[in-house]
């Protein structure tokens, strides 16, 4: 659509694909953590669940919600980045994603580690949408804290 030229900068194909076909969105049975966050300003909602193995590492994840394409695709992309990570690893990923969205320099190796999520980096140019992109990640941060507390 000619009139929407330039919109792809924010909504890359891979982002739209995650929005239209969210990954890992089925709820888990007996998750270790189950967190709901919302952004009252936009009305975006995200529910994030994690299961962990005996080693404390994430063995299953679910993200479901409703809201804009940015918040929901970010949640879906998140589900591809948490497997096998312990609480410290999750915190590290959250910090890295925050840096990416806020426009801090991110190394090539770090970008690689983010996989498809790097497609969301266009959000940097749309300051009002950064909050949307980070909603799921605030849920993950809370989840990591809960996992740490559970381990103590």
């Amino acid at each position, binding site marked *: *659509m000619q009139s*929407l030229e330039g919109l792809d900068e924010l*909504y890359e194909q891979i982002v739209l694909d995650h929005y*239209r076909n969210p990954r890992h969105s089925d709820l888990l049975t007996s998750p270790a953590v189950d967190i709901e966050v919302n952004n009252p300003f936009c009305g975006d909602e995200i529910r994030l669940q994690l299961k962990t193995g005996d080693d404390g590492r994430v063995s299953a994840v679910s993200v479901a919600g409703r809201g*804009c394409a*940015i918040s929901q695709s970010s949640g879906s992309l998140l589900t591809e980045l948490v497997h096998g990570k312990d609480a410290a690893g999750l915190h590290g990923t959250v910090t890295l994603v925050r840096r990416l969205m806020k426009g801090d320099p991110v190394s090539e190796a770090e970008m690689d580690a983010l996989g498809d999520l790097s497609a969301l980096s266009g959000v940097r140019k749309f300051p009002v949408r950064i909050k949307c992109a980070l909603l799921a990640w605030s849920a993950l941060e809370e989840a990591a804290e809960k996992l740490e507390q559970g381990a103590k």
Partner: protein
Amino acid sequence: MTHARSKYSRGTPSGGTLLDTARIRADFPILNRQVNGRTLIYLDNAATSQKPRHVIQSIVDYYERYNANVHRGVHTLSVEATDVYEEARRKVARFINAPSEKSVIWTRNTSEAINLIAYSWGDANVGEGDNIVTTAMEHHSDIVPWQQLARRKGAQVRYIPVGRQGALDMAVARNLIDRRTKLVAAMHASNVLGTINPVGELALIAHAVGALMLVDGAQSVPSMPVDVQALGCDFLAFSAHKMCGPTGIGVLYGREDVMERMQPWMFGGDMISEVTYEGAKWNDLPYKFEAGTPNIADAIATGAAVDYLDELGMGNVWAHEQALGAYALERFKELEEFHVMGPRDPGLRGGLVSFFHDTVHPHDLGQALDRMGIAIRTGHHCAMPLVRGHGIAAAARASFYIYNTEAEIDALIDGLKDAAGYFARK
């Protein structure tokens, strides 16, 4: 209502009356702006309107030619500034048919005007067990001040419910407003539903139980003839920035006898008549409520905005808005998966349309339209309880004003079709 024909208006083939937008648009420099390579289509007028050159120039003139403080000096500039400043107040008084300019208080905006009443009048007149009746479609600025007042005083806030057709349930209103009601506060025109509320009728019900009536005119005063005496309201609040005027200034109209009895809520210069080390005597209305150097430049520009609207004729402005609102409602019927909020009868509403899509979030729609140079509002519109009551968290809104055209509404509809196609879940 008959409309005086201004040189700015003309009939339309469809029978409605549209203003001469080509002529009006030439007065608004910003409408030439390019956004993302397109000529701006500004459909966020309920948030704030654009400003005609005449208003912008009035601010420049004040600062370049007669900048001085008001009410304070004998020198020429101060006298000139005071004259123009007070003339602006008289223009506003005439604009809303206030009996006297003494009952026109400058505030920062609608919100501050309502807070002034909540503190100055509310704290003195609302007590434990009393209630304040407002509506379920209110803007946050006509909800939160009453909630806080109720909390301070042990009083209760009651909400007149909104029916499915976007109208207030007046039968319930009659039950909610009782002997313990001290104030009824309602918006005249809804910034979300577009509904025009029967505030005159509410004023009668309020007065019958000895309560006062406050009208939030933020959306009505810019758009339609508003006559405080015909409405029978005791207070009216509105903002200049939504009616071709500048930001940073608004108006509280209050019935003179009520305001005579009210205590000031801010203290300092200008609002006193005499100060000793022991105390002070309050100045007369309206100054009693205007502590400190006022927003002189913006008051003057508000006078210029009123001149501009008077020239168009508020009856014509209203006819134009209703015609555009009706046209938009009709065009929205073509859009599958889009839902329009508020009354279905265009005769019951003003020039704005709020809507949502089955799956696509309003922010995504707004972002896509921005690409096409079309500015709409998305979000909760400062009416979270109302929007949530529709089972959604956010909505999109297109709101029209004197310079908008049917062609711009056509562009909006085309844009929404494209946007929905772009995001639709496969």
